């Protein structure tokens, strides 16, 4: 029964994908959306059953691979962590499905889009329900593929294709690390089943191998390799460059894949592998460092961007940084808690932004918006809710989870923990600022849109607003309702055996000094107020301020020059190398000597061979005699030798 929650999206997606063009748009929307809604309902039940009733279980489906020492089963592992993820994925996905019916109403390829969405959901579900590394990798690559297809959904746009390829290639870097990690796990543990590996981890901890004359800790190495995979998927600093570009995809895709689900796969993976990471403290430190840095760095960029979706994208990047440093300090439940609340409010923000874009004739530049509150009140209110949740304003969902993370970081009492804490505080300030910058620029003040666009700006249809309402409920209440289970008193019963914490940092986080608890709220309010001053009261201040700090702004506006750096360091040398290998290596040497050379030689030989055929009968007779004499001579010499 519960398997349906996993396989309904697959069925819907395959039907829509194969028969979509014949069934028509409406039918394919129904055939994907209805199963998704059923699956979402089932996953609510699943969360209740597994999380609250504690019915953890693993459903063996079939033997997948049985080759020598490697035996893998296809199994659905339902523990609380999975149940939470399935719940998040299915609920957000079903809302996005519904929303897409409205958002994509003008698109010519609706069946394909719906099929992609459903298939993506299936891959994501198989990732989170994985019972072993390879099954997880299957889902991991599957979501990567669907992400590629969906970013490049409008394949007639060069920028979309470029973005899709970029996302794919950058993810390959991460996936390569992930793959090496999986191979390392198999090499060290001899199995890829989670349970068996987790059981064996304490024995392996502390062992080391020699590499280039250094002793390297085995578990740390494996965890770092796996974390590289997580960095790629979750767009952490260094491998983050694809995420903003991925906004080329349709907005529902951004909401589903690049905010709520796929990008959190890295977070999920580290949480799932907590029994391994817990024994690799150095790897955890790296996670804290990367997470804290990403949180801060992405927030700074978010301050300067003009594209409404890019602002939210960098915000996502930044929030993922929060989750990672929470993981790094060992506060896995806090990270997953934030993952869930973030999924709701970030999907809400994205879909809201989509609603704005939809209503503004595909305009995405905030400099050409403003004053839209009067035109689309519902959307504006919902965006406000999302932003309040994001900024961590009390009693909204983000408040509980974000504070928990910051408190955990503080409670870690390590140097890196403090670094992450202050980076997080700074990021919280900036988050509040750019969220309200977005709101003010979009909905308030005087409009900067041209008259035509502004006059035609309109509220979205109910089919788009309804999902927003559902997500808004989540953004408002999910934090308050879930906090006792996720990070409160019922935490241990709730999580069961799905997460291992060697020492309970959450418990310590409840006992941090008062100022630590209130500081995030304070900076949030300061950020909102600053945005209000700069964009409502004194709209000319931002320009003046930017002029004052021109070099810093340029640096930040250009995304810390990461793209340019990569272009110089990796892309162009690769191009030069590739071109060189192609032209001189492949073209001149391999083709020249190989296929082309042999072909030319063959042609040459063929020409000679057929020139022998002169047509004169005495030439022929002569050739026969020469051949005869040669053979006879050969024999005579052979005979006398």
């Amino acid at each position, binding site marked *: 029964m519960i398997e349906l929650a996993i396989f309904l999206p697959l069925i819907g997606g395959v039907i829509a994908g194969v028969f979509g063009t014949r069934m028509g748009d409406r039918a394919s929307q129904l055939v994907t959306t209805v199963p998704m809604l059923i699956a979402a309902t089932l996953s609510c039940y699943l969360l209740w059953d597994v999380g609250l009733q504690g019915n953890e279980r693993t459903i063996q489906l079939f033997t997948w691979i049985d080759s020598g020492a490697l035996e893998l089963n296809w199994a659905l592992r339902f523990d609380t962590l999975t149940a939470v993820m399935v719940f998040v994925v299915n609920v957000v996905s079903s809302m996005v499905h519904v929303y897409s019916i409205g958002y994509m109403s003008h698109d010519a390829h609706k069946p394909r889009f719906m099929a992609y969405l459903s298939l993506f959901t299936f891959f994501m579900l198989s990732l989170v329900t994985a019972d072993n590394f390879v099954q997880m990798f299957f889902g991991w690559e599957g979501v990567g593929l669907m992400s590629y297809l969906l970013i490049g959904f409008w394949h007639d746009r060069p920028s979309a294709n470029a973005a899709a390829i970029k996302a794919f290639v950058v993810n390959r870097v991460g996936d390569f690390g992930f793959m090496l990690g999986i191979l390392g796990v198999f090499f060290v543990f001899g199995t890829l089943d989670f349970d068996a590996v987790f059981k064996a981890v304490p024995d392996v901890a502390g062992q080391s191998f020699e590499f280039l004359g250094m002793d390297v800790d085995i578990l740390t190495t494996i965890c770092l390799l796996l974390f590289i995979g997580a960095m790629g998927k979750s767009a952490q600093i260094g491998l983050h460059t694809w995420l903003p570009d991925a906004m080329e995809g349709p907005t529902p895709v951004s909401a589903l894949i690049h905010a709520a689900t796929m990008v959190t796969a890295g977070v999920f993976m580290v949480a799932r592998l907590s029994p391994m990471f817990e024994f690799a403290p150095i790897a955890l430190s790296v996670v804290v460092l990367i997470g804290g840095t990403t949180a801060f760095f992405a927030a700074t960029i978010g301050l300067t961007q003009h594209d409404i979706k890019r602002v939210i994208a960098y915000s996502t990047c930044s929030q993922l940084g929060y989750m990672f440093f929470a993981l790094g300090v060992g506060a896995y439940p806090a990270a997953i808690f934030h993952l869930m609340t973030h999924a709701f409010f970030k999907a809400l923000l994205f879909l809201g932004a989509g609603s704005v874009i939809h209503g503004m004739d595909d305009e995405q530049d905030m400099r050409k918006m403003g004053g839209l509150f009067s035109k689309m009140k519902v959307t504006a209110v919902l965006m406000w809710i999302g932003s309040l949740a994001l900024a961590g304003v009390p009693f909204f969902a983000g408040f509980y989870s974000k504070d928990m993370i910051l408190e955990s970081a503080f409670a870690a009492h390590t140097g890196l923990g403090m670094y992450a804490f202050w980076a997080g505080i700074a990021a919280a300030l900036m988050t509040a600022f750019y969220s309200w910058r977005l709101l003010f620029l979009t909905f308030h003040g005087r409009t900067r849109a041209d008259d035509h666009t502004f006059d035609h700006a309109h509220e979205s249809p109910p089919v788009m607003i309804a999902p927003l309402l559902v997500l808004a409920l989540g953004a408002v209440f999910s934090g308050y309702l879930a906090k006792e289970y996720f990070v409160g008193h019922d935490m241990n019963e709730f999580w069961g055996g799905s997460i291992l914490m060697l020492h309970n940092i959450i418990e310590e986080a409840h006992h941090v000094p008062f100022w630590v608890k209130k500081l995030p709220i304070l900076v949030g309010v300061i950020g909102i107020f600053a945005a209000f001053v700069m964009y409502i009261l004194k709209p000319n201040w931002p320009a003046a301020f930017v002029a004052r700090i021109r070099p810093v702004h340029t640096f930040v506006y250009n995304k810390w020059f990461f793209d340019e750096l990569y272009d110089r360091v990796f892309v162009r040398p690769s191009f030069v190398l590739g071109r060189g290998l192609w032209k001189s290596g492949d073209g001149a040497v391999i083709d020249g000597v190989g296929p082309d050379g042999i072909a030319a030689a063959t042609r040459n030989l063929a020409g000679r061979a057929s020139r022998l055929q002169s047509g004169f009968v*005495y030439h022929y007779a*002569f050739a026969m*005699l*020469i051949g005869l*004499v040669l053979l*006879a*001579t050969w024999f*005579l010499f052979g005979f006398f030798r």
Partner: protein
Amino acid sequence: MIIQALAFYLFAAVAVASGVMVISARNPVHSVLFLILAFFNSAGLFILIGAEFLAMILVVVYVGAVAVLFLFVVMMLDINFAEMREGFLQYLPIGALIGIILAAELILVFGSWVVSPEAAQVLTAPALPAGDLTNTHALGNIIYTEYIYLFQSAGLVLLVAMIGAIVLTLRHRPDVRRQKISDQVERKREDVIEIRDIPTGSGV
């Protein structure tokens, strides 16, 4: 004995010399004539070893029929021999080289000839019961018994040669008038002669 030896060397020398002349003579008619000379000398050689039937056949068939036919063909065909010779000279060096190599090899081969001990015995033993059988009779004796299969096959080869010659040369030319005696005999007066009254003065 000495006369026999002398005759052998005479015939042999003339045969080889005329063989050379066949290919080196400028006039093709001379070539054919030298060919006939070579045949005659070969026939002489056959007689020396007591194969008079073969000698006669050689003279009758090759000299009497084949070579004379050759002569006719050469004289009737208009072949530009000067042109052919140019080609001959062009290929002479390499042709000579090949020829010399081949000759050298064959000399090597014959140099290794070993006469088996029984050969002398076989040679001295009379091939035929002396006096009883003529050459022709003896040949007939084995051709129609031991070698009947080969003999009949050779006959088939000749049959095919005959068919081939007819197929490739016989032409039915509709525009050539032939005498058909039966037609002539069967012709009736009414078929060919018509008598008409033509008024005088009106013309035909």
